[in-house]
Each structure stands twice: as structure tokens, then as C-alpha cells.
């Protein structure tokens, strides 16, 4: 039990330390990009589950992120004012599905509330992930990678070519999301610190839940499928059902991240659904060692942050490619595992040496 708490406490300490440091150095504006990076790294966490534990590659997580973000953005910005007088709109209004508010120019509009839009985004993502995953995951091998690649391309084209999704401009003017208990997801600079903690908190909760999952009956089943699919099936594991479930769970996590980031930045653009974005998530999951949720989330937050701060300039995409190649060829289990091994080896070597010296001097 204590062992499980150590990484959580450490991570929480790092989160607080970063905020204190940023405030002390009067660089709080950095927290904005960091918050965005944390949302992006949620996608990577979900992908780790699919890639590292179930052994399936998804090149469609950018698309699921976009589906979440766009569903939410469309429903919370589109005005349904013309429907106001229908009887069912009245019921939906009473259920807080529809809310009346003012748009950027001060004219009254009636849109779907962020909570209802979030629910709709989850449902749409669930259906999309099910339709892609069901046929692709009944087969052994890397059919999911191909199916999701095609899916991501289709989503990108739809987003780019549809007026209701804002075409190449994307959607702006997405309202803030009042979660209750004084918590609001908004990009306003007064709420910067609060939103940083909110994003970190949600990420930490997802990390804990996924951590519980991989150290359970379900996690073992996924790992078994990865190692020896035939033997796993013969031991009573419904392999295709598990693969489908884990794929849907991770698609939903990507969509949650998409919804949250859209409310945070107040908009979403078509670049979120591009293939390169999906490939980036895969690269980051691989860079973290795939089956290592903690290191994957740390590394992806860091790299995404540097990328958002424009450290890599025009080499942005090249950095992700290089990272993938370097990690896979030097440390396929992620950088932290070999690091730990080296430290252990050196410390035991040092112990042996001092032991020898003690032996020589009686």
C-alpha cells in the first residue's frame, strides 16, 4: 500500500513545486502551456494502456481527441435559439441541457451546456471507437493500426471540409466550463494557477485509476494478451472483448482530454485531428516505455510543453521522430528503467569494491 503511494506523493510534490517555482520567478504565464501539455499527456496515458499493455497500436488517438473537442465545441457554440419555443426545448432547458447566454457580441443565444456537451462527446467517441475497434480487434495482428490510420484521415478531411466544424479556421468562442465547487475551466489569466492544479489533479486521478487497472486481474489479462494471445485465450481470457474494451477506454480518455483542452483554450482547430498529431502521441507513448504510465506521462508533458513553448521551431515534428527512433533503439523500455538498473549496478559494484578493501585490510 505504502509503495503505491510513493509515486503519487512524489508526483503531487513535483506539481506543487513547479507552480511555486513559476510564481516565485514571476513566470506564471508558463503554466498556461504546461496546463495544455498536461491535457495532451492524458491522451498518451490512454494510449500507453493500448500499446504497452494490450500490444495494439492506435494511430487514431488524435482523431478521438478531435471528436471530443469538436463535439463539445460545436454543441456549446451553436445557437439553437430558433428551437426555443418547441415543447421539448423547454424540457431540455429545465434539465440544464440547453442554456441561454450571450455570445461574444452580446446577442442572446441558446446552446447546449458544457456538461451535456461533454456527455454527448463521450457517446459519440464511444460509438466511433466501437465501430473501428470491433472488426479490427477480432483479428490478430496490427489491423487496428491500419483501421485507425484510415479513420484518422477521414476525420481530418471531414473536419477540414465541413462548415459546421468551422473548416480550416476551426471553432472559437467556446465558453468556460463551470464544474461546481468554485472550479472553472477557463483560459482567463486570473484562473491560471487554479486551472493548472485542476488539469494536474484530473491527470493524476486518471494516472491512479489506470495504475490500479494495470495491477489487477484486468491488467494481467491485457499483458497476457500482449505476450501470448493464444495462451491467454486458452486460459479463459476473452481476448477480443478485452482488446475492444481497452481501446474504447483509451479513446474515451483521449476525448476527455479533447473536451477539457477545448474549454481551456476556448477553441479547437483542424490540426488537432491531423495524422501527425496521432503519430506524436504514439511517439510519446513509446518514448515513455509504453508499459510505464508514470514515465510516459512525465516525458510527454515535458516534450509537449517544450513544443508548445516553441523550443523546437521548425524542427518540431522532426524532434518527435528523432525521439521515437532514439528511445526505441537505445532504451525500448523507456529511459527510466535502464537508468534505475544502472544505478543499482553501480551501487552494487561500489559495495563489492569497498567490501574487497575491507577484506584486504584486516
Amino acid at each position: 500500500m505504502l509503495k503505491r503511494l510513493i509515486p503519487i506523493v512524489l508526483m503531487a510534490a513535483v506539481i506543487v513545486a513547479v507552480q511555486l517555482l513559476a510564481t516565485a520567478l514571476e513566470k506564471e504565464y508558463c503554466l498556461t502551456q504546461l496546463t495544455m501539455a498536461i491535457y495532451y499527456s492524458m491522451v498518451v496515458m490512454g494510449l500507453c494502456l493500448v500499446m504497452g499493455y494490450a500490444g495494439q497500436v492506435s494511430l487514431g488517438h488524435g482523431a478521438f481527441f478531435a471528436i471530443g473537442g469538436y463535439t463539445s465545441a460545436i454543441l456549446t457554440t451553436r445557437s439553437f435559439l430558433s428551437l426555443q419555443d418547441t415543447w421539448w426545448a423547454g424540457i431540455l432547458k429545465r434539465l440544464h441541457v440547453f442554456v441561454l447566454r450571450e455570445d461574444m457580441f452580446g446577442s442572446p443565444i441558446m446552446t447546449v451546456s458544457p456538461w451535456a456537451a461533454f456527455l454527448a462527446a463521450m457517446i459519440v467517441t464511444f460509438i466511433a471507437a466501437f465501430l473501428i475497434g470491433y472488426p479490427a480487434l477480432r483479428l490478430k495482428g496490427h489491423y487496428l493500426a491500419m483501421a485507425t490510420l484510415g479513420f484518422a484521415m477521414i476525420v481530418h478531411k471531414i473536419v477540414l471540409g465541413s462548415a459546421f466544424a468551422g473548416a480550416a479556421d476551426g471553432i472559437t468562442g467556446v465558453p468556460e466550463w463551470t464544474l461546481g465547487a468554485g472550479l472553472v475551466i477557463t483560459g482567463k489569466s486570473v484562473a491560471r494557477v487554479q486551472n493548472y492544479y485542476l488539469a494536474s489533479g484530473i491527470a493524476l486521478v486518471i494516472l491512479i485509476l489506470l495504475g490500479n487497472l494495470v495491477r489487477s486481474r484486468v491488467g494481467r489479462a491485457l499483458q497476457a494478451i500482449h505476450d501470448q494471445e493464444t495462451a491467454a485465450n486458452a486460459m479463459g481470457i476473452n481476448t477480443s472483448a478485452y482488446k475492444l474494451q481497452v481501446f474504447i477506454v483509451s479513446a474515451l480518455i483521449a476525448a476527455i482530454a479533447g473536451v477539457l483542452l477545448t474549454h481551456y483554450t476556448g477553441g479547437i482547430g483542424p490540426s488537432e485531428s491531423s495524422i501527425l498529431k496521432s503519430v506524436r502521441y504514439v511517439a510519446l507513448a513509446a518514448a515513455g516505455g509504453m508499459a510505464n504510465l508514470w514515465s510516459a506521462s512525465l516525458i510527454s508533458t515535458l516534450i509537449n510543453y517544450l513544443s508548445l513553448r516553441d523550443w523546437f521551431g521548425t524542427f518540431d515534428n522532426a524532434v518527435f521522430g528523432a525521439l521515437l527512433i532514439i528511445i526505441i533503439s537505445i532504451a525500448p523500455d523507456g529511459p527510466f528503467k535502464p537508468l534505475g538498473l544502472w544505478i543499482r549496478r553501480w551501487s552494487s559494484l561500489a559495495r563489492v569494491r569497498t567490501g574487497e578493501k575491507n577484506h584486504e585490510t584486516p
Partner: protein
Amino acid sequence: MKLLEVLNARRSFGGLVAVDQVSFSVFSGQIKAMIGPNGAGKTTLFNIISGLLPTETGKILFKGKNIHRLKPFQIAHAGISRTFQNPSLFLKMSVLENVMVGRHSRTRWGFIGCGLRFPGQIREEKHIQEAALEQIAYVGLEHLADSPAGSLGFGQRRMVELARALATEPELLLLDEPASGLNPKETEDLGLLIRKIRDTGVTILLVEHDMSLVMDISDDVLVLHNGSVIAEGTPSAVQDDQKVISVYLGKGLAHAAPGEKSSMRLRRP
């Protein structure tokens, strides 16, 4: 009581008929051995029974119910477990985790319960671990419970696989060449262990090439040759069967034919 009944099972790969109209029964509480030269169709028959390959004709009845359309995991739920000719352990997991996977079909918590660690799920996890440790101790590997499965020797891997299969609480256990790769001492221990497992009420069907082991432990022997049953009976009856001697044991023909293999080919039924 007939626990398993195979009726007219048939399976071909391209033009090769690996299993041809095979019928036999396994009775509760038996140790039944399936023998035959390489390519006789023994492993194919195992794969048919455990659901990895569908049979083209006929039926597979387990406790009177037809199971030949079920998936392997459903057959494991029904109470048939197996080991593989080449031990197929989950090499990235520890010995304990491997055996814990065997408890999968007897446990129930899913994604949400495991993610949120419900009290019931924590209790179940404890039971899984205890049951797995019990099976590991049963095959005598308790000192290796935390070792990675990939670090074990061949014989130990076989034992872990056996523990994993037992963890599913099977009524029928299929062992595919359990003694291959074991030394004589290990083989002897295995024989004792298989008897011990049978005495706890598990019926055993095994494929084996080690004749002394087969003759020593089995109650009943089935002889396959080129995908067909050529003899069935007690070990001593099978040993005396002329057909078996000629195609398989090759005893009486050793002086007459230039080599065992050629004699087998000459006597193809």
C-alpha cells in the same frame, strides 16, 4: 461417466488430413494417454478439443454438451484446461503473475471495479494471489514465485504452465508432451505429480512420447497413426497389439526392416 466424447472429429490442412474421423471417450477420473508417431495428429486433436481449431465434421461433447463451436476461453470456463508442447508462458510476468492469470475464468471484476479498487475487488485479488501461491507450491516452485518467467529453465517452465492450468480449476486437463525436455528424475517426479493431480479428481488426457511414463501412469491408451485411431485399451493390451507394434513401437520388425521409419511407411494402413 463419459467426461469427454469426441465423435468423428476431422481436420485437414490443405490436402493433408491431419485428423480423420477420430472418435474416442475419456471417462471421469482417468489418466488417458494419446500416443503415436510424429504427425499422427495428436496436437491437432488437442487443439480441436481446446477450441483453437474447429473440427470440420462431428462433435465434441464435454459433460454431454457440444463444445465444438465454443471459443477457447469459453472452453476454459467450461472446465477444460491445457498446457502447450512448447511452454507458452507470459515471459514478461513473474511466475506468480503467470499462475494468477490462470484464475481469470474463476474471477469476475472488470475495468471499472479494478480501476476504482472496490473493496470486493481487493478481496478477490487477495484470493487470486493465495490460490496461485497454493498451485505454485503444489508443483514445488514456491521459491521461484517472484522470479520473471523468462529466467526459468525449460523444466521449470513446464511446471509453471502446469500450475497455471491447474489454477483454472479444470475438470479435464490436457497435457501436451509434459515430459519432453525433462531429465529422467524430473520425468519420474512428473509421473507422481500427474497421479497426485488425478487423485484430487481431475481427469487427465495427455500426449506423450516417453513410453515408460505412458505405460507407468495411464489407465487407458489411445494410439493414433496418420490421423486415425488404430488401437485403444489398457497399456498392456496396447503394447501387445500387432498393429501398434508394427506402426509405432517397431519392436518385432526391427530385424526385418532396414529402419523403423521405413517400416512405418511400408505398413501404412
